[in-house]
Each structure stands twice: as structure tokens, then as C-alpha cells.
């Protein structure tokens, strides 16, 4: 049994890797990407501002790297085993990593960058450590942002030069009219040749177009050189502030985080699920907010559906073919065939609408006055019974729970009925009946217990479904649960949030299947994994 468990657990790792890799690739293939949902509203900000902002975000989330690099980086974030310098942790629990290395300036073969600054800097001690580190951190982040923006401006200037020069440079632009700097190693000779030929033409055959071309070339070249200069200055500054911040970081302004295995090489630390950029909050916080709501609704819904469906299934099988069997069969199947969307709309339109029945609230989990309510039903000052906070909550979740349960009756009760019927016709049942065991004992103790196996499989499948949340029900009733979260994440292409959701659902799924297998062994002595 133990070997079996270990083997199953080890198999989980490649399965999870496969699932996340696949989702990651699909996300990378999706058009638009992260930038699509981060675009400024339009009509505000200037072109360079937006380009710079995008460059900064790309740098921050590493979006311009190859997909596989991004995937490995994501894995190393969520993995509890960390490599390299240990992070530090502020007293408030925020984790700070060592400042990232600054990317080199573009096209160094044509425009050699200035010498890399080497900062000699002694961090202060005592009370000043933390404020100084904060200041350096801020400087470093700010100058990095400016540098990354200046790289984008340089690329635009390069693309402009290519467009003005024309062939052969213009052919190297990509589909979006952007330039990849490394393709422009021969930039200066080509540019100078173009300028010379333009100048010669302007002298030999003076025309408005010829002079215009000379001017355009000169303009584009000037802009390019300005961009190079600004990129280099900003690079020096970014490098300098990064080195300072790194030195201050190495002086450990805060206690180090995690448990070292080999100091500063391998560390055990908690997983970091990242930040959901569409909501600008840590993914974990979002899940913690949404999960209890979904669990609450499901934990109410599932016992109800089991308590109703299983006994009726048993009764239907015992009285196979009589009126009860037919009635529940027809009723459950007709419920099953009502789409949840329609049921939800009808529930709101008739059960909740004051113009009709108005029995239930329409949305949310609490009434507006819920904060002031006592927890349990109690008498208020005037002696009138009040429903209380708990009652109010149950009243609010009634309709979502109804919509979640009614469809599952058919599957559960039919499944119970079928496996009961299988067993009822078995030889041991006839023997028991012949022995004179009371009918109820035969049904409950012999047949029902043996019919539990398929129900176990179905029961375990519930948990992953609970984590996923019910997208439709949560949307119709404005329930802020996991379903709404996943839906939002997908429509915003929010990578970290989608991946965390997928990972959680995958883990729970795999674990649930394992639990199902173990439960089989417990419920049925014939099953063994030795």
C-alpha cells in the first residue's frame, strides 16, 4: 500500500507539470496577450508615455522573454525549493528579492556603451539601514523603469531610421513595424551611404523631394543618436542604483526568509503565486477571498442533493417499476433537462421578483442591514423575532443552492438505483432472503453497502468541481466565488491567476482520484493495491 501511495504521489509531479505547461503554452498562443487588457483607455496619455508604460510592464512581468523562460521562472516562483540568494522578509511578511540584473543596452556592436559603473558604497548601520534600503530600492526601481522606457524609444527611433532609409533596412522590420536591434549590425554604413546618395541626388537634380529626403534622413539620424545617448545615460544610472540597492540588500536590512539547505544556493521557502495584474492583488489573497464563498454554497448544496437523491434511488430500486420509481424517474430527468441559466433567470424573475412571489433576495450574500444583526435568530427590543445574520445568509444562498442541486438528482439517484438493482439480483441476496433475513436488513446492510462503490467515485469528483466554482450560478446571482474569479481571469488573460487556479484544480483533482482509490480499498476488501 505504501509503495503504491509513493508511486502515485510521484506520478502527480509530471502530471501537474504537463497540465501547467499546456495551459501556459495556450495562454502564450492567445492573441493580444497581457498588453491587451492593460491598454490605456484612449484619448489620454501620449504615444511615448504609453509605449514606455508597456515597456515597463513587459520588463516587470518578463513578457518579452521566450515562453519557456517565462514558464521556468513561474515554476521557480511556485516551487518551494528556491535557488540563489535568499530573499528577505519585512516584519509585515512581504518578501523582497535581490534586485534583478539590468539588461544590456541594445545594439552594443554599433553603439558601444560607456564603461559599466563600479559602485563602492558602504551601507549605513543601525537605525538608518531600513530607511536607506527603502530609498535605494525606490531609486533602483525608478531608474530601471526609465531605462527600460528609453530602450523602447531607441527601438522606435531605429524603426524610423529603417523606414526613412528604405531597403535594405526596411525589410528587417517585423510585422508590427517594430525593429529588432540585433538585426541592424550594419546600420551606420548603410545609413551614411543613404545620406550620401541622397545628398548627391539633391545636388545633381535639385527637387523638393530630394531636399525633403535629405532632411528626413538627417532628422531620423539625429533622433536615433539622441535616443542612444539617453539610453546609455539611463543605463549607467540604472546600473549604479542597482548596485547600490544590491549592496544594501546584501547587508540584510531585514531578516532572511526561508530555511537554508545550502546557504545562498538552495533554500526552502513558501510558494509565491504572484500578483494578478488585472486586479493588482496577490493571487493568493484573491483565492482566499473567493474560496470560502464557493465552499459554503457547495457544502450546503451537496449534502442536500445526496440526502434526497440517494434514498430515493434506493427506494426506487426496491420498488422497481412501481409508481414511485416512475414518478422520481420522470421528475428528476425533467429537472435535469432544465438548463441552469434558464432556471436561474426564472428563479430571479418569479421567485425573487416582488411583482410575482418575491420570496427571496436577488443577489449577494447578505442584506444591507446584516452588519447590525445578531448572529442567531433572536428577539429584538420590541420583542419581535428577527432572523439573524445566519438566517439571513441562508436565505440569501437559497436560490443559488437550489440551482446547483436540482440537476444532480437525476444522475445520483439513477446511479444508486442501477447499482442497487445489480446487487439485488445477485445470488447472495437470494441466499440472505432464503435464510430469512428481514427485508430491510437485506437492502440496507447487504445491497446498499455493496452499491456504494460507484457513489464513492462520484462523491470524490465533487471537490475539484467545488474549487472551480459554478460559473453560471455565480454569475447569475452575483456570488463572488471561485467561478466568477476564474471567468474574470480568463477574460482578462490574467496569466498568474489562471495558472494558480488551474494548478489548484489540478492538484485537488489528482488528489481526489487518489483518495477515491484508497476509499475503494476501504469499502471493498476485495480491492488491494499490494
Amino acid at each position, binding site marked *: 500500500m505504501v509503495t503504491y501511495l509513493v508511486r502515485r504521489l510521484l506520478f502527480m509531479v509530471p502530471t501537474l507539470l504537463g497540465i501547467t505547461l499546456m495551459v501556459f503554452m495556450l495562454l502564450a498562443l492567445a492573441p493580444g496577450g497581457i498588453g491587451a487588457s492593460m491598454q490605456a483607455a484612449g*484619448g489620454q496619455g501620449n504615444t511615448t508615455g504609453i509605449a514606455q508604460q508597456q515597456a*515597463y510592464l513587459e520588463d516587470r512581468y518578463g513578457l518579452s522573454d521566450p515562453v519557456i523562460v517565462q514558464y521556468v521562472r513561474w515554476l521557480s516562483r511556485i516551487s518551494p525549493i528556491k535557488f540563489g540568494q535568499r530573499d528577505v522578509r519585512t516584519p*509585515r511578511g512581504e518578501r523582497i528579492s535581490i534586485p534583478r540584473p539590468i539588461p544590456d543596452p541594445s545594439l552594443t556592436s554599433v553603439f558601444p556603451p560607456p564603461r559599466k559603473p563600479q559602485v563602492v558604497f558602504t551601507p549605513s548601520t543601525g537605525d538608518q539601514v531600513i530607511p536607506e534600503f527603502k530609498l535605494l530600492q*525606490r531609486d533602483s526601481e525608478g531608474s530601471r523603469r526609465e531605462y527600460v522606457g528609453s530602450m523602447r524609444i531607441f527601438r522606435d527611433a531605429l524603426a524610423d531610421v529603417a523606414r526613412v532609409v528604405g531597403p535594405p533596412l526596411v525589410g528587417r522590420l517585423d510585422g508590427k513595424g517594430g525593429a529588432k536591434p540585433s538585426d541592424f549590425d550594419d546600420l551606420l554604413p548603410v545609413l551614411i551611404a543613404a545620406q550620401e546618395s541622397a545628398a548627391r541626388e539633391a545636388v545633381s537634380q535639385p527637387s523638393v523631394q530630394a531636399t525633403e529626403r535629405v532632411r528626413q534622413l538627417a532628422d531620423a539620424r539625429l533622433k536615433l543618436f539622441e535616443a542612444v545617448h539617453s539610453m546609455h545615460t539611463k543605463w549607467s544610472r540604472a546600473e549604479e542604483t542597482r548596485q547600490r540597492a544590491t549592496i544594501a540588500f546584501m547587508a540584510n536590512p531585514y531578516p532572511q526568509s526561508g530555511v537554508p539547505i545550502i546557504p545562498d544556493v538552495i533554500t526552502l521557502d513558501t510558494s509565491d503565486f504572484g500578483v494578478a495584474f488585472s486586479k493588482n492583488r496577490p493571487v493568493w489573497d484573491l483565492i482566499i477571498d473567493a474560496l470560502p464563498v464557493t465552499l459554503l454554497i457547495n457544502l450546503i448544496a451537496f449534502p442536500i442533493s445526496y440526502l434526497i437523491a440517494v434514498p430515493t434511488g434506493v427506494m426506487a430500486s426496491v420498488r422497481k417499476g412501481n409508481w414511485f420509481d416512475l414518478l422520481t424517474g420522470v421528475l428528476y430527468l425533467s429537472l435535469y433537462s432544465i438548463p441552469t441559466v434558464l432556471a436561474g433567470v426564472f428563479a430571479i424573475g418569479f421567485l425573487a421578483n416582488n411583482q410575482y412571489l*418575491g420570496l427571496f433576495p436577488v443577489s449577494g450574500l447578505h442584506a444591507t442591514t446584516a452588519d447590525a444583526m445578531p448572529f442567531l435568530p433572536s428577539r429584538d427590543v420590541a420583542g419581535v423575532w428577527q432572523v439573524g445574520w445566519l438566517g439571513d445568509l441562508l436565505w440569501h444562498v437559497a436560490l443559488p443552492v437550489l440551482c446547483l442541486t436540482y440537476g444532480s438528482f437525476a444522475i445520483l439517484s439513477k446511479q444508486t438505483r442501477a447499482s442497487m438493482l445489480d446487487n439485488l439480483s445477485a445470488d447472495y441476496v437470494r441466499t440472505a432472503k432464503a435464510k430469512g433475513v428481514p427485508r430491510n436488513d437485506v437492502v440496507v446492510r447487504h445491497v446498499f453497502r455493496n452499491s456504494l462503490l460507484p457513489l464513492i467515485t462520484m462523491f470524490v469528483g465533487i471537490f475539484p468541481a467545488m474549487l472551480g466554482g459554478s460559473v453560471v450560478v455565480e454569475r447569475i446571482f452575483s456570488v463572488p466565488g471561485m467561478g466568477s474569479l476564474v471567468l474574470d481571469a480568463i477574460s482578462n488573460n490574467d496569466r498568474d491567476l489562471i495558472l494558480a487556479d488551474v494548478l489548484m484544480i489540478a492538484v485537488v483533482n489528482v488528489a481526489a482520484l487518489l483518495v477515491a482509490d484508497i476509499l475503494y480499498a476501504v469499502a471493498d476488501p476485495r480491492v488491494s493495491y499490494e
Partner: protein
Amino acid sequence: MRNGFGFKDFVMIVLLFAVAIGMWLSMVQRDRQWELLQRVDGRLMDLEKRLLQVRSTAAMAPISNSPATQLANSNGDAWARPGVKVNHWPAPSPATDPTEVPGFAAGGEFVELFEAQPAKVVPYIASDVYATRVLDRVCESLGTFDPKTLKMVGQLSDGWQIDPDGLWIRVHINPAAHFSDGQPVTSEDVRWTYMDFINNPLIEAERTRSTQDNLKEVKVIDDLTVEFRFQDALFTNILIALGDPILPKHYYSKFEPSQINQATGLMTGSGPFRMAKLPKGPDDLSNQWTPGEDVVLVRNEQYWSAPAPLAGLRFRTIKDDLGRLVAYRNGEGSMMLPTSPQFNKVTKEEPDFEKSSYALRWVNMRCGYSFIAWQCGPRAGKRMTPFADARVRRAMTLLLDREKMIRDIWDGIGIVSKGPMNPESPGSDPAVSPLPYDLEQAKALLAQAGWKDRDGDGILENDKGDKFTFEYTYATGGEISERIARFVKDSCVKAGIVMTTRPVDWSRYQELLKLRDFDAITMGWSATSPESDPRQIWHSESTKEGGDNFTQWINKDCDALIEKGRRTMVEADRMMVWRAFEACVAADQPYTFLRVAPWLRFVKRDFGNVNPYRTGLEPQEFFRVSPTPAMN
């Protein structure tokens, strides 16, 4: 002989469970009572503290009202730079005084129903429209748009000077202004908001920061005077300096940048309402609004100007359209935004509806417009489309009956848009009307441009024999865009033009915009203020990567007008430039402007002083007409 699990055992276990759950529930009950007590206690302490503050200000009052101070004030603006005109402003007051409206009463809660959940309500860090609606009630900026005239008037400021050359703006803060915790608003708060909050790279205020590239520094002159200095003379400087909410430094500087970035409900300011749940400090961060709850605002009892009549505002999210309407009818909401069919159905088929509700429909400065954009440049950098010719674009507009489109597609709700300016803005010339629907003139223009039916098959050809066909791209997911596509297709057939459609997903759509890979595309622009910088959408510079001039429309006259308008600091002059710009765009028709979408709102008649202004609605002026007895 059975020793198995019997019915009695079952009953016993159930009973045991029931007792255990009962005990646990009663413990929770006690806990809640304890928490309630704590809250009441906290509020009491708060009140005591405020009482002390009031007492000490009362003691200080004779000093602050001494003749010397008054003299400095009446001497006129010791704070001002000499020789430049000063605009003086009174303290903010309601545009329509609610106390003079019959039936006025104080108190009551106003519940606004949101269509989507804001992810967070933190100034500058949250940027969606819902967070902004909350922000507008809680925070104030130095200036604001007057609801009736749409002119920039003082809010926290009682006077300002604008450099005629546009390089600086000096603002004086109203000495009476204070934040909702009683601390005065000072020039240091202003400087801190701009330099150490918005422009702090560790704070994720990217969106606002990218609009402030032109801001060089904010300098504190004295306690109540601050000067904004800019690199370049642009009219947007005024919006930057006066339009962004001012945050209390003493409150926000208690938090680490990362805490502010990740907070969900850290919003406080000097406005007429304040958040009901607000952390006192970094150790109290669990006491803040989180998504999933209603956003609850309570009246700022210490508001420094006329207090709001309502005791509180509540924002509740109901995503489902039907659910929202039912909740509104059931009284779970006081205001909602109906869909066009809902608005029509209710106002036309239910005569009783307007007895209990205002059904409001009006155009204001926040109304955007929808349009069809024609590809004026090379598509995806390769071939030219027929729309490169301005005559063809004009013809396209002429052959679309936009009145009919609004009637058939938008249920008659909307007005025909005539240009890039909001029709309420003074920058839009009221004398100009949109191009008419005129099929004959359209055909004549097309013929002029060389598009004629040369082979008699009913489809237009140019002189090379190419047929007039184009591809129409729209984002899937909305019935409206499909109906527009069908309408445009039918209209084109009448003129002998073949249109194919390409429905694409929204993210793919955005990529196509960036690549300029389309012939014609439909979309809408939103608006937040009476004027915005047109450069981003209309200037030829914005045809480059990242710019929103995705039609690649280049018009040198228009470029010149945009540059001139951006550098005109005097509002009235600038508006004249914008009118010329509007005419320039209208003549060239890079877009066919379709419709300005008016605001639709249902508001319960339980509330009074509900006025549709040119800025939108102002809930701080509302009051509850007949306060119904509390629910419990």
C-alpha cells in the same frame, strides 16, 4: 443478538452533533456581540477625540480671525505671483441647494447598483469606472468641473493663477479645507500626493503617472500655497494640476508602498463621504473593504463645506441584467443603469413605473461615442484600401442612415454623433450638424473618386477593373456589433459595394488595431471630462506603434490645429481651436461617427434633488424624501 449500529445510536450521535453545533453557534453569537461592542466603543472614542478637536479649534478661533490675518487676505493674495491674474473661488457648494427643495430631510442610505465588481477602491491604483465613482465621493481635488457650466472651478482651492505661457500653475488651498479625520489640507499634502505617491516608482499608479510626464516639480510655497511647474506648455497641465484627488500624507505615509499596492479599500480624503471601514494603520489592514462586500460610505460629519444630506451611500454589485432590474424593483437598490431595452420596455409599457422612479436619459460630458473607422493608410503596411480617398470616406458616411441605425439597433436611444468632441463640450460647435443620409450624393462622390459600375453587374469598379469590396472587422460578444455589421452590409449593397465581415475575439481585435490590419473596424471611445488631448487619436505622430491613430489618417492642417490647441492656455480660445479641429475631422471623415450614447438611469422617487447635470449625477446633493422606518 445484534450489536451493530442501531437507530438509537444514530439518534444519540445526531443529538451530540446538535449540541456541539449549538454551542459553537452561541459562541459565535457572543463573539459578534463583543465585536459590536468594540465597534461602538471605538466610535465613541472617535467622537470624544473629535469633540476635543472642535473644542480646541473653538479656542483658537479668535486668533485665526484676528484682523492681521484678514488684512493679509483682503490685501489680496500675498501668496500669488505678482502681475498674473488670480482666479478666486468660494468653498464648494451644491449646484442645486437641497435644503431649498420641498420635502427636504436629512438621513437615509442611497444604494447604487453596479454592473461589475471593482477589484479595489484605492485612489490612483484602482482605475476602473466603478472605483472612480466611489472615489468621486470620498476624495476631492484642487479643482473640479462645474456641473452646470463645465468650467474648471475651485474645490479644495480658493484661488489659483495660471501662467499665460503655460509653464506653471500656482494654487492656494482653502484654509477651511480639512480631511475627514480633521487634519487640515496643506500644500505638503499636495506635493506629497504628486511627487511621493503618484510619481513614486514603488507605487503602482502607472496609469496616472504616464499622464504626468510633463510635470517637472511641485513646489511648496507656504503652508497653503503650492506651485506646479511643467516642462512644456500644454493645456493638459491644468487638468493634471487641478483634476487629480489630493490624499492625506499623514495617513498614507503610514503604509509601505507594497501595502498600498495590495490594499483593496484604502481610500480616504476630504470629500463629503468617507469609507465606513478604513484601517487606522498598518496593523489594522484587515479592517478594510474587500471585493464581494458592498462598498459602504458614511457621511463625513466633519465635512468642511455644506454637509451631504444623505447619511450614507452603498454600492452593491449585481452582474446579471435581469437580476439588477429585479433587485431595483424590490427596493434593494435606489439607482441602477438599465440596458436600452429595459429602459424602453419599462418607460413605454409600464405607466406606473415613473410614479415611483425617475427614468433619466441625458447626454453629459462622460458620454462617449461609437464609430466606424476607415483605413486611410496602407493596411498592415502593405496595400492601400479604397478608403485612402477622403471622397470615398465621405460617401460611406452619406450612405449610412445613422438615424435609422439608432432607431433599429439601439432602440432609439442615442443621438447621431458628428465628431470627436463631446456634444456637451464647448469645444463642439452646436451649429454644425452631422452629415445627412444621402445615397445619391454618396454615389456621385464614389463616381468622382473613380468607382463606377463599369461592367453592369451592380458592383462598383475602379478604372483598373477592381471591384469595390472591403472587409469589416468587429469584436464578437455583442449582439449590437453584429446588428451594426448587418446594417452596414445592407447599406453598402445599395451603393454597389460588397462588404465581407470578420468577427474576431476582443484580444485579437486589439492586436489588429495595433497592426493596422483592417479595412474598416467598429469601436467606441469613452469620455471622462469635457475635453481631452486629441493628439493620441488624431495626430499623425500617433500612427506609429502604440498610438491610437490606427486609421493612419494624416492631415497636416489637423496636426497644426491639435498642436495649436494643446498650447492654448486660455479656455475660450482653445475651444475655438477645437471647433476648427472638429470641422477638419468632419470634412475628412476618417471615422464615420455613429452615435453618442446618453446616460440612462433609474432613480427611486424616494430621493429628492436628483438633477441630471452636464457632469453626470451628484449624489452628495440627494436627500431621502420619506425616510422609511429602518428594516429592523
